């Protein structure tokens, strides 16, 4: 088949993936609201069908362009969206057995794909420029996509859900405290614990007793918080590796491993913020909402690293292919 035919298949399956993700997202939200098992089944089947079509789209894009399918911003966006849905299904539903929040992850992916398809990010498949033609593109860029998809899931989607749910729980607790004069609130448990039993950095905060009192529409904030932490802690070494691999590549192709190019600077900023998040988790007074806000700032920084730096700031990483 010719490059053009592959490209057409890639485009068609890309659209098919979006049109499978959309019902998956809607069914997932409906399940969240009504808790009917068939809805969950529909959501899963549609999401898996979407992933299948998406995978075909990514592979055929690579065949059309004649290189690994993550050489331009469009390809990066597509793979990122794919990985976010995959991670939501595998990590959140598979490992943590939380079925109610996949819809939000899919929404993020659909948004990412829509932005990629409708803006100047959308460029036809083309061969790589010499500066990118290196085996490091397989190592550095794959790590960057993997890391950013996990940051997007943990620092973005899950953290926003945590803040929403935590806010709700606080209001409920406050309302409850107003009703009955002296309830033993979960929050005071922390203080009565001897110090060496204080929750570790990866432990959920907030009281389970408090959140299990009412089921609510989302999982208890403590559960979301733990998932968010785990996902970020999973992403952090991958991102670190991506930055290091990028530095090694830069040393090979530009003669210096670090030059404060905008992309380098922003990936460093994102790294520093998430390093701050991991430290905040281990610092009393910062756990919970404080750390979550830092994670959210990290997510914003990730978006800047990706969209703003690629599209608006001039630097050596100007490979978006949108010029």
């Amino acid at each position, binding site marked *: 088949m010719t490059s053009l035919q592959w490209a057409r298949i890639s485009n068609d399956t890309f659209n098919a993936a979006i049109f499978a993700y959309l019902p998956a997202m809607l069914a997932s939200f409906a399940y969240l609201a009504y808790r009917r098992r068939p809805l969950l089944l529909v959501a899963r089947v549609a999401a898996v069908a979407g992933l299948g079509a998406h995978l075909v789209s990514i592979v055929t894009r690579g065949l059309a362009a004649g290189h690994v399918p993550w050489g331009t911003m469009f390809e990066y966006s597509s793979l990122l969206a794919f990985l976010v849905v995959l991670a939501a299904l595998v990590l959140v539903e598979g490992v943590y057995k939380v079925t109610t929040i996949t819809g939000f992850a899919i929404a993020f992916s659909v948004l990412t794909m829509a932005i990629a398809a409708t803006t100047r990010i959308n460029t036809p498949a083309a*061969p790589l420029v010499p500066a990118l033609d*290196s085996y490091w593109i397989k190592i550095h860029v794959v790590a960057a996509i993997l890391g950013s998809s996990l940051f997007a899931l943990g620092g973005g989607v899950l953290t926003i859900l945590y803040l929403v749910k935590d806010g709700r729980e606080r209001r409920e607790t406050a309302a409850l405290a107003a009703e009955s004069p002296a309830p033993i609130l979960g929050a005071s448990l922390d203080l009565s614990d001897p110090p060496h*039993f204080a929750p570790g950095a*990866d*432990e959920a905060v907030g009281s389970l007793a408090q959140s299990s009192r009412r089921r609510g529409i989302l999982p208890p904030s403590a559960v979301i918080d733990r998932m968010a932490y785990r996902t970020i802690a999973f992403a952090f070494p991958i991102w670190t590796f991506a930055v290091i691999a990028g530095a090694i590549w830069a040393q090979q*192709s530009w003669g210096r491993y670090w030059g404060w190019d905008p992309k380098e600077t922003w990936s460093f*900023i994102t790294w*520093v*913020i998430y390093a701050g998040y991991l430290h905040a988790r281990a610092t009393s*007074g910062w756990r919970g909402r404080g750390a979550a806000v830092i994670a959210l700032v990290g997510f914003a920084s990730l978006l800047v690293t990706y969209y703003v730096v690629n599209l608006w700031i001039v630097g050596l990483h100007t490979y978006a292919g949108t010029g």
Partner: protein
Amino acid sequence: MSSVPRHLTLRQSVALVWRTLRSMRTALALLFLLALGSVVGSLVPQIPNSPDRVARFQADHPLLGRFYQHAGFFDVFGSWWFVLIMALLLVSLVACLVPRTRASIRNVRQKPLHAREIDAFPQYAERTVRAEVPEAIATSQRVLRRRMFRVSRAEDALAADKGALRELGSLVFHWALLLLLIGSVYGKGTGFTGKALVVEGESWTDGAANYDGTIRAGRFFDGDFTGVGLTLHSFEATYRANGTPMDFVSHVDLLDPGGTVARSADVRVNHPAVFGGLRFFQFGFGYAPVIEIREGDRLLYAGPVPFAHQAPPEGVPELALPWDGIVKVPSVTPGLGIQLTLWPDSGAFLQFQQTGEPVPMLRADHPILFFTTWKGPLVDPSPRSLDTSVMQEGRKGALGEGQTCSLSTTKCWGPGEGTPEADELTISFPSIRQYSIFQVSRDRGVPIVLLAAILVLLGLLPALYTSRRKVWVRAEPNGEGTVLKVGGFALQRKPQFEEEFTKLIAEIERATTERIGAS
């Protein structure tokens, strides 16, 4: 609030500063300041990365430019306040790491401590087993050892712990960050980066005067150039049919300080040559037409002249633009300057003239050279620019490869044809060559930085993914058997530890029962 006395002694103030520096809150604040400073560095043009954009910014916004200049915003990563944040972070890191490292060493040496009240721990279980106390303890010890716990044994009790790797990994990670910083400061401080412009067929030697433009040297650079060099045999640029570049390669011989050829190498994008502690990167290329200026038969000037590319306007491919060069002939009074413009591909030039549509020139094909003469004093010392403000414009003309033109009549002729007057100035364009620009750099810190980066990653994994847990066992005789009391807790990953603890209890129970069955 009265715990803080109003007047601190010097000792107390030092202790207070030290405590503040060591606190995680300070470290967090410094991390965010670092991120914030970097944001500025990415938004404001930086002198080391794009000096021309800085100059343009200063011209466009004089007031803001002056403020940025004073605040160090044009060189954030070299500014005093950025270095200060880094230094404070460093001190904070060391202040935090030294006691932690000491404690960690103590912990590793020390055997796990015994506990008095086992049933107070978050995880607790009791099992009655049919075994004597010493035997039950020995079996439990074996089980714990098999599960990689460190065990310290008393007569009727065990204390065990596991997961020291978490703290160790965290320490390795943080010390490695420090090493990374040291390596990069050492490498950048003692190293330099410069550009070498070499025309095909010519040689270049590593020496202070031979670099093109300024050398960016580190603070501790001692000026010890190596004297190694290279000869550029040829440069090739290849393009795809649509004009996107495919490959740039310089075929070179690398020369020892004595000038003898050590080996040949191909320098291409992503594939530098490393020689004599220097790295040579393919950085750029261009055309260097060979130009000869004669007065009658007398040769006044001869040699390849490196031409620079005009900056392309928006939307025009760079290669569609002509190249500019300057020739200066001071031996003609009152001075002669020639501005030259080269169209490497005359076909593309003609097409551009006809259609107005710029055509990329991917190779030299019947190149055409336009010239404008200027007479007057040569006040600008740079060989690449001509200050025409005090000069008078002379004739204009054009010539092809192999041709010679009169600078006074602008009449041109082919090789071996025309005969100029004895005092007539002529320009000849016998051939066209290419030049290659190499970025030459020395950074001795690279191996240190690489090692540190590997350690950062190696430390990070156990620091994030392992957990510390402790288990205590006590055996008390109970009729014909023994009551085993087991308690434990985990500092991290508590849900996982709950499962692990359940399995551990089951295994201890099974092991003690099996032994009874066997005996």
